C-alpha cells in the first residue's frame, strides 16, 4: 500500500497513491483529475463541486469485512432522477479492490467479476429478469439510468464522461447482490452482498452534529 508519490502537474501539490493499481486520482488541492501515464501524471480535467452529501463514509474511512481490512480510496457520485448515490472505491489489505455502494444509507459491497459468456443485452434486461452467474440466481430489482456527477480520489479506470448509463441491480433471496454496468460492451458485472452498517466495522467516519 505504500504509495509512489508524485506532484500535481497543475498545482504542484504532492499526490499520494494508496493503491498501486490506481489509474486515476484527483488532486485534493486544485481538484484536477489526474491520470497516470507510464512516467507521469497528466491532467485530463477538473472536478466540479460535488453535490452536498451526507454519506457517513469519506476518503480514508477504514473498515473490515469478513476479516479483510479495507480503506476507502475513491468514489464516484452518480446522479439519477431520484437524487444521488455513492460508489465508494475500496482497496483491501491484499491489494484487491472493490466497491461499497451507499444509496440512502442502504449498503451493498461488490467486486468486479468475470461475466458469464452470455450477458443480457441492455435491451433485454428488464425488471424481474433472471440472471445466472457463479451459480447464483439473481433477479433484476431495479433498472436505473444515471450519469457520473463527480469523482474523487483513486479509481481503477479513467473516467469522467457525463452521459447517461444503464445500471441493472439484481438480488437473490439470501442477500447476494449484483450490478450489471452497461457503460461498456460487453457489460461489466459486479457481484457482492447487501450489508448492514455494523457488518463493516467502520473507523474514521464523518461526524454529524448532534449524533456523536
Amino acid at each position, binding site marked *: 500500500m505504500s504509495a509512489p508519490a508524485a506532484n500535481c502537474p497543475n498545482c504542484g501539490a504532492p499526490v499520494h497513491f494508496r493503491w498501486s493499481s490506481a489509474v486515476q486520482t484527483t488532486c485534493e488541492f486544485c481538484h484536477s483529475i489526474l491520470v497516470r501515464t507510464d512516467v507521469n501524471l497528466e491532467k485530463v480535467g477538473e472536478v466540479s463541486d460535488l453535490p*452536498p*452529501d451526507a454519506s457517513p463514509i469519506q476518503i480514508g474511512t477504514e473498515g473490515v469485512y469478513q476479516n479483510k481490512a479495507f480503506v476507502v480510496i475513491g468514489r464516484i457520485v452518480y446522479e439519477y432522477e*431520484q437524487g444521488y448515490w455513492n460508489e465508494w472505491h475500496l482497496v483491501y489489505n491484499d491489494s484487491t479492490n472493490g466497491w461499497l455502494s451507499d444509496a440512502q*444509507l*442502504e449498503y451493498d459491497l461488490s467486486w468486479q467479476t468475470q461475466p458469464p459468456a452470455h450477458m443480457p443485452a441492455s435491451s433485454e434486461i428488464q425488471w424481474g429478469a433472471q440472471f445466472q452467474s457463479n451459480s447464483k440466481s439473481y433477479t433484476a430489482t*431495479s433498472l436505473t439510468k444515471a450519469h457520473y456527477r463527480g469523482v474523487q480520489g483513486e479509481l481503477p479506470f479513467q473516467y469522467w464522461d457525463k452521459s447517461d448509463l444503464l445500471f441493472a441491480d439484481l438480488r*437473490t*433471496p439470501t442477500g447476494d447482490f449484483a450490478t450489471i454496468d452497461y457503460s461498456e460492451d460487453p457489460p461489466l458485472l459486479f457481484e457482492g452482498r447487501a450489508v448492514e452498517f455494523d457488518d463493516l466495522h467502520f473507523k474514521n*467516519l*464523518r461526524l454529524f452534529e448532534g449524533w456523536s
Partner: protein
Amino acid sequence: MASSIVTPPVVKPKSLNCPGCGAAVEIRGFAHTLNAVCPNCLSVLDATNPQIEILQRFQRKERIQPKIPLGTRGKLANIPYEVIGFQRREVQSDSDVYCWDEYLLFNPYYGFRYLTEYQGHWNVVRVLGALPVETVSIGKPSVEFQGRRYRHFDSLQARTNYILGEFPWQIRVGDVVDDRDFVSPPYMLSAETTSGELTWSFAEYTPGKQIWAAFQLPGSPPATSGIFANQPSPYEGRPGSVWRTWLWLTVALVAIALIFSMISSNKEVFQNTYLFTPGSKTDASFVTPTFELTGRTSNVEIEVHTDLNNNWAYFNFALINEDTGQDFDFGREVSYYRDSDGSEGSPKDSAIVSRVPSGKYYLRVEPEMESRTFQSMSYELTIRRDVPTHLFFWIAGLLLLIPPIFVSVRAAGFEAARWRESDYASSTSSGGGGDDD
C-alpha cells in the same frame, strides 16, 4: 497541517425558509432530504434546490398531530433514531376508507427505518436488501424468506393524503403505490411497486408500550382496536402445547388406570348357578352363603349371567354385612330380545357397589319375572371383590379434553378475526371489522 486527508468538519444540519410563507423549515436528514414540508403552510419544498422551489401547495383545514412528534428520538435495538417525516396513507376498500400513519426514522449511519401505526397497532419496518421468493402455497400466493413462509394477506393501493417533515425521496400528497402484504406473525413482508421499481420491506409487530418506552413518550399508547394483519396471536403455539400437555396427561391417566387394574385384586368371592321359575308359590327370595370381603374398603361387583331369550327379569339385591347389618340395596333389570332384525339388551348384567368395607357378607337375591311366561330362567351369580373400574378415568379423560378444545377454538377465532380484514375474508362476514370509530 499538510496531512493528506483533512478530516472534514462536522456535518451540520441546515434549515430553510419557506418561500411561500417565510417560516423556518428545519432539516434533520442532512443532504439526504430531497423534499421537506413547511410546518406552517404545509407546502412541499424542494430541499435540494438553493432557490427552494415550492413543489406542491396544499391547504387543509384539519391539521394532523402525529402521535410521535417530529424531532423525537428513540432507540430501536439500541440504535438511536430520530423521527423526521410523517405521512398518512389511505386505502379505499369498497365504501370504506382506511387510514394509517407512517413515521420516517433516521440515523446518519444506520439509515432509515419506518414506524407504522393503524388503530393502535405498531410495526417497525425496514427495507430489505434480499429478495423474498414468491410462491404459491395451497392455491394462495405466498412468499418465502429466511426459512419462513408468509401468506398473502392483501393487495391494495395506498394513497398519501397528508405529509409532514422531510423525506429522502420525492413525495407529494396524492402519491399512489401498489402494495402487497404477506404475513407470518409477528412479521410482515410488503412489496411496494412504484414506477417499475420493486421494494420489499420487513415489518415486525411491536406493542405500542414498547414504542412508547423506546421514544420515551409521555402517557400511554393509544389502545388497540381489532386484530392487525401480523399481530401475534395470544394463542400462538398454545393449541399445540395444550394438546401436547393433554397427550401427556392422557398417557398418565391411562397408565394410572392400568396400575389401578393391576393392583385391583379382582377376586372372585362367590359363584353359584340358580334356577328361577316364575309363578311358583314359594317366596323367590333367598340368601347366599356368607363370603368374606377382604382388604381395603373397595367395590364389589355382582354379575348375573342369565339364559333369558326374548324375556326379561328383575333382580332385587341386597348386600348385607353379617356382623353390622349394614346393607347395600339395589335392583337390576335384565332383558334380552332378538328377532331377524337384530337384538336388544343382553342376557348378562353387572353392577358395582362401591365403597364396601371389608367383612363377612351375604347377598339377598329376589328375582322377578313376568309370571305368565312360565318359562324358567337359569342364571349364574358371580361376586367379585375389588374389581378395576374405568368410569372415573373416562370422566377424567373427557374433562381433560376441555382445555385443549377451548384453546383451539379461541385460537381459531383469533385467526378468523385476523383474516376477516384480509382479501380472503369470507363474503358472509362483511361487518366483521366492527370496531371502526
